């Protein structure tokens, strides 16, 4: 069964799934890991900007879930609850690094990047039909992540959840415990700042020649 199929099944049987998790089913916990490791790894990575930090954050997140699942009451959906834990774990790490960086690292412009090898990308086979999607070049990746790293956490997280994870305003509000108005204004500020950071980059895209990306063309509206 593919993860997508499991995902759809789970949406219908969330109560049963949570029950199995709460009685300590190893199989259920394994399913949980395989379902959620990629999305929360991506959130952690976009927040922290470093693959090994993100991996540790994900590990820590699953351990917290494992310990706390028995007290999960189902007031929010399981996914929201999991994302909350993932985000708070990433935030804690982010805060810790910020404090540490102030004391140790001289240049505040350099994003935190400890891994020798770059981050690992999900390989999409070429025969997969995706007429509208294209993938950014490594250069673009780096430029965008650098701009994200400069964003204050509050704005960064809403932009990540909205523009990368595709969550609705309601889900974002529920996950971060924010009003819709706050979500809107933080999103606005976040996007504005990103726009400012990426201004030169965008200028080149708009007015320069069409940029040849690694797996396709970066075309503009």
């Amino acid at each position: 069964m593919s993860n997508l199929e499991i995902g759809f099944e789970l949406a219908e049987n969330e109560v049963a799934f949570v029950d199995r998790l709460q009685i300590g089913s190893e199989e259920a916990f394994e399913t949980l890991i395989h379902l959620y490791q990629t999305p929360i790894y991506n959130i952690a990575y976009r927040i922290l900007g470093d693959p090994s930090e993100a991996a540790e954050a994900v590990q820590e997140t699953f351990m917290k879930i494992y310990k706390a699942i028995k007290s999960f009451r189902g007031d929010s959906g399981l996914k929201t609850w999991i994302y909350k834990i993932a985000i708070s774990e990433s935030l804690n790490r982010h805060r810790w690094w910020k404090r540490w960086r102030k004391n140790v690292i001289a240049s505040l412009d350099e994003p935190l990047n400890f891994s020798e090898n770059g981050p690992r990308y999900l390989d999409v086979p070429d025969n997969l039909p995706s007429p509208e999607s294209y993938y950014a070049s490594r250069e673009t990746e780096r430029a965008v992540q650098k701009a994200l790293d400069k964003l204050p956490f509050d704005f960064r997280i809403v932009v990540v959840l909205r523009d990368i994870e595709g969550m609705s305003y309601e889900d974002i509000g529920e996950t971060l415990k924010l009003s819709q108005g706050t979500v809107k204004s933080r999103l606005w500020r976040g996007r504005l700042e990103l726009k400012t950071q990426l201004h030169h980059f965008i200028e080149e895209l708009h007015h320069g020649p069409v940029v040849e990306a690694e797996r396709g063309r970066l075309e503009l509206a």
Partner: protein
Amino acid sequence: MDCRESRKLLSSYLDDVLSWQETAAMERHLEGCLSCAEQHREMVTVRKLMRSLRRMEPPSDLALRVKIEASKLNQPPFAERVFSNLGTALRPIAIPAFSGVVLTFLFFVVLMGTFLPGASVSASDKDIPLSLFTEPRASSFYMSRFVQLENFKSLKEPITVETQVGNDGRIVDYKILSGPKDLTKDLATIRSLNEFFFFELYLEPATLFGRPTSGKVVLTLNFCPTANDRIDVLG
């Protein structure tokens, strides 16, 4: 709508969450205002860039690391285990309350508690790393008046059996590996052995990732005639 208003609503306009009046006003303004239209275009590009970011893949061993961490959480500390075994052993058992029997019983259980964790028990068939799988352990035994000890008194040699232990600690099956000759023909002894294994003996089940599961363990039965007849179960 003026430029100040339009800039404020740009992000929401992008997500199509404005009222239809605001949307109409916005579109009208963008048609006529070059700088706001440029701002809008840039914001659209930023969003496209965000959406174009590749999906990151977590390290391939992440899932396994999480599972191992989680399995560690299920192992109670050693001392707790010995005492919990003692506790189970002291639960009401169907024997006459002769103090001699109780004393021997207590002594034996404590002894077993100290010996067993270090003792080498025959490994199970499954080739699983030791940290994840623990074998069944003989944690206590019961001597009840229902077991015909008379049959065991005649045993000159110890009996070695390979037992199959279910995930609740009960023995589901056993196979005699060695013992006195013609043991299998001695129906009375076999019957007593059955009673002992299937109804008296309770083992701590094997665990996989901290959850009880079935497993195998080799046991040796030694009958030691003492003032308080007891059966030694050695793992």
